[in-house]
């Protein structure tokens, strides 16, 4: 009896059943899950938890009765406020112009000119790109700076410098390091898939950026695709491989160069525009890859900034470093 049972267990059906019942992992022994030991990295689990309870150590809610009561009142008031807000907005919606009607206020001379003469004035076949990078380029520069300043803030919060001397910061660096040791590495599925996907993602991202003035897409979307490719590569091959071509130095150089190019190019364009000077930037033939004046350059700048920002967010959140 037991012998038959053994055979069944090693048969495909038995293995399927075991897998189905969650008793067997097809990736057993093939994935490198590195469980840290106390001797290797002397960490205290309480350290990690201590950071989570930050708010409670700063404001001890259990001891402070007034704070607790005001907390309850605060919750009730927030709900009331949200409900009122929702009610007012829903009540107001019925007075708004109906969606998609031809005589709505938004269908005015502004959009007419963007659509009607956008191609002649900006050289971009994609109206949206022409709008954000030529008619309203100042706003878009602001948006790139929003991304830039967001990375700066994440760096302030999460970056740990190698040459840190302050014992408090060294301890925090240690805490962050303990988190990372539990992560799976060298996952074979991820590696095989990313061999195919990563080059495709890079090429597709570059295509979207370079064709931003011709087809739907542009710097923001293309940069996001390239950033996703970088993150996928990092997930499957780890930092040692990624650092061969992308370090904090690369990040700084790329984002600095892109933003400075954007700033100088647009300053020139604004200056000539406001003083009614000739800008001497050829628009080219609409439809050609090298056309539409500065838009192509700006798209490349925005794309680099977005790709770097996405990668920087990921790696700062994961490791606190590049």
């Amino acid at each position, binding site marked *: 009896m037991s012998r038959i049972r053994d055979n069944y267990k090693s048969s495909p059906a038995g293995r399927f059943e075991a897998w189905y019942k969650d008793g067997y992992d097809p990736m057993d022994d093939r994935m490198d899950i590195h469980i840290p030991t106390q001797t290797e990295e002397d960490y205290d689990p309480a350290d990690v938890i201590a950071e989570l309870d*930050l*708010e409670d*150590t*700063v*404001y001890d809610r259990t001891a402070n009765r007034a704070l607790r009561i005001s907390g309850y009142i605060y919750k009730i008031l927030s709900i009331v406020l949200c409900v009122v807000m929702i009610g*007012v*907005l829903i*009540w*107001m919606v019925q*007075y*708004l*112009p109906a969606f998609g009607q031809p005589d*709505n*206020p*938004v*269908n*005015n001379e*502004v959009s007419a*000119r*963007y659509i009607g003469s956008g191609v002649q*004035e900006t050289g971009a076949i994609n109206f949206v790109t022409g709008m954000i990078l*030529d*008619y*309203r*380029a*100042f*706003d878009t*520069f*602001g*948006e790139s*700076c*929003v991304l*830039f*300043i967001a990375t*700066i*803030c994440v*760096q*302030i*919060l999460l*970056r740990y*410098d190698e*040459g*840190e*001397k*302050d014992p408090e*910061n060294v301890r925090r660096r240690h805490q962050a390091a303990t988190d990372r040791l539990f992560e799976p590495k060298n996952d074979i599925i991820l590696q095989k898939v990313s061999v195919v996907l990563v080059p495709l993602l890079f090429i597709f991202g570059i295509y979207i950026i370079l064709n931003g003035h011709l087809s739907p897409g542009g710097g923001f979307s293309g940069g996001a695709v390239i950033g996703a490719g970088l993150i996928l590569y990092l997930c499957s091959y780890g930092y040692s491989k990624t650092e061969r071509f992308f370090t904090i130095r690369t990040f*700084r150089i790329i*984002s*600095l160069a892109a*933003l*400075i190019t954007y*700033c100088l190019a647009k300053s020139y*364009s*604004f*200056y*000539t*525009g*406001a*003083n009614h000077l000739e*800008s001497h930037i050829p628009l080219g033939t609409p439809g050609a890859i090298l056309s539409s004046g500065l838009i192509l350059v700006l798209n490349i700048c925005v794309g680099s900034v977005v790709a770097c920002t996405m990668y920087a967010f990921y790696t700062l959140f994961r490791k606190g470093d590049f």
Partner: protein
Amino acid sequence: MDFLRNLPFFCIMLAMFTGIVSSAVSGRAARRLTLAMVTAVLVMSALTLVYAEQAGESTTYLMGHFPAPWGNEIRFGTLEAFLALYFAIIMLLSVLGGWSHAVIDIEAGKENLFYVLIDLMMSSLLAMIYTNDLFTGYVFVEINTIAACGMIMIRQNGHGIVAAIRYMVMSLIGSGLFLIGISLLYDVTGHLLMVPAHSAVEQIVADGTYIVPLLVIIVLISVGMAIKSGLYPFHSWIPETYGYATPTASAILSSLVSKGYIILLIKIFYRVIGFDTVISSHVLNALFAFGVIAMIMGSVHAILQTDCRRMIAYSSVAQIGYIYMGIGLGTKAGMVAAVFHLLTHAATKSLLFISAVGLYEVSDGRTDYLGLRNAGFRNRVAGLAFSVGALSMVGFPMLSGFISKYLFATAALEKPHKMLITLAALIISTVLNAIYFLRQVVTIYSGRPGEAVSTGRFIKEAIAESTFSERFASIALVLLNLFLGLFSEVVINLISRGLDLFA
């Protein structure tokens, strides 16, 4: 001479360019770059003011090759140029006054990031002052919010992080409401540039279509900006934020960031919606009511504080209340008083925060108000600066606070049904102000001159640390306060001419 009209654009771009470059240099170089940039902005804004005064009218400047309803624009008149100049002065003095503390408070290697934040903050303040486009306004409100968050949390202790989270949540709610407001406004007008949007709104008011959405828009924009600048029921982020950030950040946040939003709100009231439409929507009455409550409650909270900087922070709640009360009066005199008080508060609060830290330095690091006993004798410059700031907030004649209270009182006389409340609130608030500020001033000068809380050696070292630039900044801010108090006529004229150009 005609070249001068490019200067506001140069200021904004220079500030952003400095911010981008600063991210790649050392902390010391970043600080020098920032100081150079702010000085350059100061000089250029002064020249802009000269240009605007000579032109006698507002100038529109294309940001690109396309005119009003299609491309971005900035616009400047007397008031904009003056505000840019004034904000640059305050920014310069705040950085000078607090940099020695910033070096200690900020982790090694991240100092340059702090100056990146200051540069981009400056650019966003300038853009909010100069913008003639609603969406540009929103983009720079975003930059301003994120930069302010970074400035709060750069001092990475528990309080800093919690304050940054609170600030971020409240501020993003404000931005969200503002964004919904702008989107709805675009939906009913079809324009984002201020001038065409204004004529579309006038059309809406004349026709009577979309009156309900217009009311909701005014409410959303006012409430969004009120939350972001910390009007009373939305003030819960203020004490943490101003009380525990590094001194430069406290000074900038209290004196410039909240003011930038108020300027943008005033601009939208005048230039987009039209002040008469705003008055007839009765939203101003709500702002008036909350402003009056803030004046009283902020001061009451401030009396209850023992920590000196938290007390100053709660005093900010009251002062923001003054400004909104002035706006809420719904008259031009009220608006002039509000803008003047905005200037007063900017000069005085940065002075108070910087000098309070100067007093902490010589008090063994104690921050409660009794711990500062006798500190005015140990650090004479900081003591003098703190006393001047406190007296100005209370409304001592010759100082700027007196003039703004006087302006509020005279403005209230024009509005019979709001007069009594305004005057009563002014009197009560002044008395409450006097209670907590004079308590502090008396404390720092009480006891025998030789008495000290700690050993003499420590005090000597601490005074040596209080750098020359800190003393320079304190004295310059005292002089600025005296200037606003003694030559108020010039400034009031300028504000009232500038507001005429707005409409």
